[in-house]
């Protein structure tokens, strides 16, 4: 990407200049600020949040990785998921779309483990309570880094078993900040900056478009459309009405848009009351031009999010304490009405540059029956306001029962969470006209396409959920000499009513408001002997309402052991190895989101009837029928996973830490079509049964380096590596004479397509005219020289048949999920300066070049520079693109390896450089610290895709944000 490169260079230069300038200014300073804590926290010290509790890091014998809110604060992002790229070992975060308030990244813990309709999404837990919703309605995504103490990812069965039938995909555990005893601390941060598109697709101008279109027509044996005079007019731009040359992206998007954020938080307290309060406002304008300024009936593209949180801890008595948490967020976005990511960007990606001018000579909108005018769509179709509100609240009482036995306590908690998303649409239509030149050179207007209407409105509820959670705990923690025991039993009941995002939000189906209910009880016992030997046993017992009454509850046991070798005599004095622990865990966990949550699939234990109408009588009267659609499956149950984890934690040479985990996950009871296990003569629509199996194994690795705290130049690096290799072990697929079409044995999500083997030569075409099957080809298209040639490997009898069709598909490329991903968080501190960089890299994934951006002239679309490499008789040897066709070509644009590219990339996700004012200066104005910083997100991408960003080739562009910020602490 050339543009990226240029900007990158500018940024580097900017950083270097600032750094040089700043260090020059600091050289004479003598009072180096000694920061109390290390830049990145140790992997093995402090407390770790675990399922329904905390545990000293040393005692952890399961697979958990943790990141802290203070690290995440050094990014500018619209949702929490976007702060986690490359941060946590075993958590793979993939960029989704980038539209503010709409898109959230994908998050997977240790990769993909199931397929079909089942969910791979982890369970999100905020302060002990489940968080509902998907995408932006997920309360997790709404949180801000400033309110977060830590985010832990629970990766193995032993760490998640307490969550029972919801645990198999791993758990993302969020703990928010609590007030600490001490005097009031206030922190205020603001960022001001701008967004720009990280990359935009490029298209050919009208002249190049016309030249290539003529060539495409000629290739199809059709007369050319553009005369030399036309081409000349496109070239010199002398006739913008009848020979327009419009860069539509340029007409619709602006180069930069404003972004800002404000955060105020304060906390403190005494031994009776401790409090933490956070307020956050974020504003990010969209990339569309300010159409609201051009028309009262449109609106500027805006996005804002407001968050608040108030966490209170009150000691009501010496024994009774209460935690009260209330937090919420409000998202509000405004856009021109006809704007949706899908329609506007697909229009921009298909509309040819010479289709029509933006405005006709008489001021009306250009346009034709085939294409709307993107500018008209954004100015003259009304506007759309969307807003959503989230409330998270919880109350938890804890009573110390030391009078019964020391170390015993009991707690009860209740949480009520709520989400509501609403839209307000004001819509209208506008006419557009195409123009032709009359015989005397005058302008003739076509009849209007579309008509002018007045603004009308509609309100709609888009999505909502409300949940009610009750929990009770009995905790025990005590140390007797060499023995350290902690035990916990608890119960949890949650009831979630949600609908949507409904396909027709104004008409939610009754089924979508049928609450989801879970009851669970769980217990954990941890025993540590002599700070050397650790044994832990967890048991979850959970019931879920989506299964048949007698099949609702199940047990989920898991155990883990640890051995802290560094506390043994032989290593205790070692200067090389400061800490060494071996860990192993094994357990059974479940996943009860086994199918898409629709009307017919959610309750598989009830049959559904419908269809089968017929006709009787002399009037051919239709009569209704009841045909059994899906038969009742009383045995339907959750997916299960047997998960093994073996880990090693080591700290050495004081400054280095490493944590390595190998895992092996055997998922079974995956709901799949029972084609190979249920005979057809049974006479039922092939049921889905709990028969599928997968295996996923791999490793994750976390590394830390912290230079000595007291040096003037401090350097730190926190790296993580994750590799997973999954495989479908059993899928009950129908028998197949072309075995390469089976998914069993492949990776989950392995693309199947045709394998491109070059282009047809003129000789091939001559040979085909004699014997079509001697040079295999498709039956659906007249094949010409320069078309993509595919490998013929299958046929109806399972052998090559001289015909290219669905039987010739085979595994091509890799799934879209990377096999290997790497994260690096690094930086340095020198005197008042700090630098913080986050890199993310992935490999082992494939991206597909599809749609109008890459498929020239298809669906009346435009053409991109990739088509310059097209096949022509002269370039037959060197062509990189098939011959051009003016019509939709059913051969060249099939799903094939030709359009696949390696999706590997390394991205600089976030960079921040800051300067903290010297203490003498801040003391004078009575503030404890002040820091100014420059922050950038999505600054660089090194990848193999010449024409865009590998994670978002089409749709709303990924935004790069540059901000200047100030943090003041009182």
């Amino acid at each position, binding site marked *: 990407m050339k543009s990226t490169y240029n900007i990158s260079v500018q940024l580097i230069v900017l950083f270097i200049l600032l750094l040089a300038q700043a260090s020059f200014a600091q050289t004479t300073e003598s009072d180096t600020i000694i920061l109390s804590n290390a830049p990145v926290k140790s992997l093995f010290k402090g407390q770790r949040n675990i399922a329904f509790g905390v545990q000293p890091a040393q005692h952890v014998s399961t697979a958990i990785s943790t990141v802290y809110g203070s690290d995440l604060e050094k990014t500018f992002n619209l949702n929490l998921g976007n702060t986690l790229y490359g941060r946590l070992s075993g958590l793979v975060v993939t960029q989704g779309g980038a539209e503010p308030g709409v898109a959230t990244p994908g998050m997977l813990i240790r990769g993909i483990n199931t397929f079909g309709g089942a969910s791979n999404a982890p369970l999100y837990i905020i302060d002990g309570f489940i968080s509902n919703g998907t995408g932006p309605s997920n309360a997790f995504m709404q949180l801000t880094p400033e309110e977060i103490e830590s985010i832990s990812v629970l990766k193995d069965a032993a760490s998640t078993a307490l969550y029972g039938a919801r645990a198999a995909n791993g758990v993302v555990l969020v703990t928010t900040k609590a007030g600490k005893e001490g005097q009031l601390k206030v922190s205020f941060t603001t960022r001001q900056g701008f967004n720009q598109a990280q990359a935009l697709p490029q298209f050919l101008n009208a002249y190049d478009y016309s030249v290539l279109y003529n060539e495409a027509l000629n290739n199809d044996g059709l007369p050319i459309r553009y005369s030399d005079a036309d081409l000349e007019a496109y070239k010199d731009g002398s006739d913008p009405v009848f020979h327009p040359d419009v860069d539509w992206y340029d007409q619709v998007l602006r180069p930069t848009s404003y972004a800002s954020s404000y955060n105020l938080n304060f906390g403190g307290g005494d031994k009776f009351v401790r409090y933490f309060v956070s307020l956050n406002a974020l504003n990010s304008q969209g990339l569309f031009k300010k159409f609201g300024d051009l028309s009262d009936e449109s609106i500027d593209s805006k996005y804002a999010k407001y968050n608040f949180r108030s966490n209170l801890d009150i000691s009501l008595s010496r024994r009774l304490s209460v935690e009260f948490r209330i937090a919420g967020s409000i998202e509000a976005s405004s856009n021109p009405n006809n704007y949706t990511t899908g329609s506007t960007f697909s229009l921009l990606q298909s509309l040819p540059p010479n289709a029509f001018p933006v405005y006709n000579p008489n001021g009306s909108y250009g346009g034709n029956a085939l294409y709307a005018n993107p500018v008209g769509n954004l100015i003259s179709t009304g506007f759309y306001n969307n807003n959503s509100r989230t409330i998270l609240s919880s109350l938890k009482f804890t009573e110390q029962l030391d009078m019964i036995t020391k170390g015993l306590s009991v707690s009860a908690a209740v949480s009520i969470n709520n989400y509501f998303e609403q839209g307000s649409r004001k819509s209208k239509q506008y006419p557009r006209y195409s123009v032709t030149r009359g015989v005397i050179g005058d302008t003739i207007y076509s009849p209007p396409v579309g008509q002018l209407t007045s603004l009308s409105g509609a309100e709609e509820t888009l999505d909502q959920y409300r949940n009610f959670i009750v929990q009770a705990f009995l905790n025990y923690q005590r140390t007797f000499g060499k023995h350290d025991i902690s035990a916990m039993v608890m*119960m949890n009941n949650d009831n979630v009513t949600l609908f949507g995002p409904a396909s027709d939000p104004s008409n939610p189906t009754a089924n979508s408001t049928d609450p989801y209910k879970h009851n669970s009880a769980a217990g954990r016992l941890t025993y540590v002997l002599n700070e050397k030997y650790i044994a832990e046993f967890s048991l979850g017992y959970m019931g879920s309402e989506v299964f048949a009454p007698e099949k*609702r509850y199940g047990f989920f046991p898991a155990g883990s052991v640890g051995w802290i070798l560094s506390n043994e005599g032989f290593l205790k004095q070692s200067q090389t190895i400061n800490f060494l622990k071996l860990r192993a865990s094994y357990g059974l966990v479940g996943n009860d989101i086994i199918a898409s949550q629709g009307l017919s699939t959610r309750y598989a234990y009830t049959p559904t009837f419908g269809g089968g109408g017929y006709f009787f009588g002399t009037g051919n009267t239709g009569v209704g029928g009841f045909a059994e659609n899906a038969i009742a499956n009383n045995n339907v149950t959750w997916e299960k996973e047997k998960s093994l984890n073996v880990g090693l934690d080591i700290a050495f040479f004081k400054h280095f830490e490493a944590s390595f985990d190998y895992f092996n996950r055997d998922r079974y009871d995956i709901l799949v079509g029972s084609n190979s296990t249920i005979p057809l003569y049974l*006479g039922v629509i092939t049921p889905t049964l709990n028969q599928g199996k997968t295996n996923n194994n791999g490793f994750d690795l976390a590394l830390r380096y912290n230079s000595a705290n007291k040096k003037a130049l401090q350097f730190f690096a926190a790296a993580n590596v994750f590799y997973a290799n999954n495989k479908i072990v059993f899928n009950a697929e129908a028998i197949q004479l072309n075995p390469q079409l089976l998914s069993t044995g492949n990776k989950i999500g392995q693309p199947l397509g045709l394998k491109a083997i070059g282009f047809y030569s003129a000789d091939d075409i001559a040979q085909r005219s004699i014997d079509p099957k001697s040079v295999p080809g498709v039956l659906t298209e007249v094949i010409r020289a320069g078309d993509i040639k595919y490998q013929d490997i299958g046929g109806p009898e399972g052998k090559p048949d001289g015909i290219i069709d669905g039987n010739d598909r085979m595994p091509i490329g890799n799934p879209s999920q990377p096999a290997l991903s790497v994260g690096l968080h690094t930086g340095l501190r020198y005197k008042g300066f700090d630098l913080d960089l986050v890199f993310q890299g992935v490999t082992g994934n494939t991206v597909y070049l599809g749609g109008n951006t890459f498929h020239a002239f298809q669906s009346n679309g435009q053409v991109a520079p990739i088509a310059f490499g097209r096949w022509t008789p002269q370039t037959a040897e060197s062509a990189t693109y098939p011959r051009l066709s003016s019509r939709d070509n059913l051969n060249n644009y099939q799903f094939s390896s030709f359009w696949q590219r390696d999706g590997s990339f390394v991205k600089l996700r976030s960079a921040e450089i800051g300067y903290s004012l010297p203490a003498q200066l801040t003391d004078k104005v009575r503030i404890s610290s002040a820091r100014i910083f420059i922050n950038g997100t999505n600054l660089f991408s090194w990848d193999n895709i010449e024409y865009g960003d590998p994670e978002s080739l089409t749709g709303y562009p990924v935004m790069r944000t540059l901000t200047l910020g100030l943090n003041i602490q009182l």
Partner: protein
Amino acid sequence: MKRYSYLFAVCGVLALASCEKLDRDFVTTIGRNEIEQSFGNVQALLNAIYADLPDGTLYIGGAAMMGAATDEAEFTAETNAVQSFNSGSWNAVSNPDFVWDRYYRGIRKVNQFLLSTGKVNLDPWRLDPNPSAQTVYQTNLAAIKRWAYEARFLRAFMYFELVKRYGGVPLLNEALEVDADFSKTQRNTLDDCIKFIVSECDSAALQLPLNPTTLPYVAATDLGRVTKLSALALKSRVLLYAASELFNNPSWAAGYAKPEYISLPAGDRNARWKAASDAAKAVIDAAPLPNLGAYKALFNTFNNAEIIFTRRNGASNQFERINSPIGFPQGQSGNTPSQNLVDAYEVKVNATTAVKFDWNNPAMAANPYANRDPRLEMTVVRNDASFGTPARKAQLYTSGLDGKPITNASKTGYYLRKYQIESLNLNNNNTGVHSWIIFRYPEIYLNYAEALNEWSPGNSDIKTFYDRVRSRTGVAMPGLPTGLSQAEVREAIRNEKRVEFAFEDHRFWDVRRWMQGPTYFGTPLRGVDITRDATTGAFSYTPSTVEQRTFDPKMYLYPIPQNDLNISPLIVQNPLW
């Protein structure tokens, strides 16, 4: 301090109390229990079984007819699965006419329906002393009983659809559970299957009204239901197949371990032919015979005395879209009749004499469509014949509007007319009803003639009923000449069936049961090349080969789906597959 403990205790109790049951708050879908309680809903279960009857008009891939898998026609689109019948590339995994699961699904529905009929709650009427309620009670009770026989006929029909494809199949007359032990399932013998189907037909025939106008049926609402005639007609067809060569001569599968699956036990062939002719005669004697009316219109109605049983459909124009000539609005060519079929239509010399068409006869070859059996024009769109709305003459000659070399123009030189509602304007999306007739009287007549000729050659009924088919209004072809040998009569009857029932999905099965596969289906499919003299406008016709066709003896029966063989190893595959 105590106060807080109480507070806590209250919270704890609340927490435990909230451990609620996990039942659904409400159920939105109707279940089998609710359906079985209701008279109307159980009737809807039966309706859904009728909906499983085959519709041969848009059969394979939603477009091709079974005729395109025979010497009747070629389907134009190369991509349609029907082509693999003709190229021989069909097998136990991929079979274009994949009905095994479809009919077993229907059979399961019947099995469950027969249980449901016993559960209908008629108490609202039974317990109501009001006489009118008692009348309704009695009517409903009788209706439920009748439904059971309708369903049992439909099951027997579906079994025969399986038997004519696969030979003996598992007779599964109870719905199996998903977790049943499938490893024990076996095929029933062909003899078992035939006997079962025949006995079901006999039971149904005793209990069902004679025809849609016989009480308690009322044509206005019940036309299209199974009648006594339907049951008798199925029995006639089944026994004709049972007497025919294929099910009595396993020589094509020498060495096959389980001949009882593919053929009947050796026995008196004449007795089997007699049983077949008796069964046909039973239909003929059951009711006054209808007059056979216009041939072309028959296929666009469901209400005609000639029709014994038909598959009903809503109005549509998909058939016209698929099959209209390529040069007509929306036309896609579809199923195009072959020269093989066209040649089978006789030339009518005069009111009493008809002769075979012969390309070697120069007069016939020069003017091939003159004086032909009128059913040719009613079945086929030939070159220079008028077609469509608005009507124009089909231009099937080279470079004509409907001819080669237009992409997807007919490869045979003909288009299909039968079943097409020519009055539909497709650009206006007009629609009409297509009737896929399952049984009509002429089949019974020819079944009777064919069976009679085998065990009682020279019987006068042979000519009577053969002539009856040919003498219909608008056809009036000469009758069976006297003095023909048994073999000549057999050939005449077979040709009559080929012509009368073109595209009605008889040819595929008749050629198999006559064991003439290699003769008719293993030989090239022919078409005609037509050129038009630019100056005189005269046409000349040259027969040509359209496609080489494949027929192996294994194709007498379908292979049983490999999937089920894998799951149930005791099910034995058909020979040679």
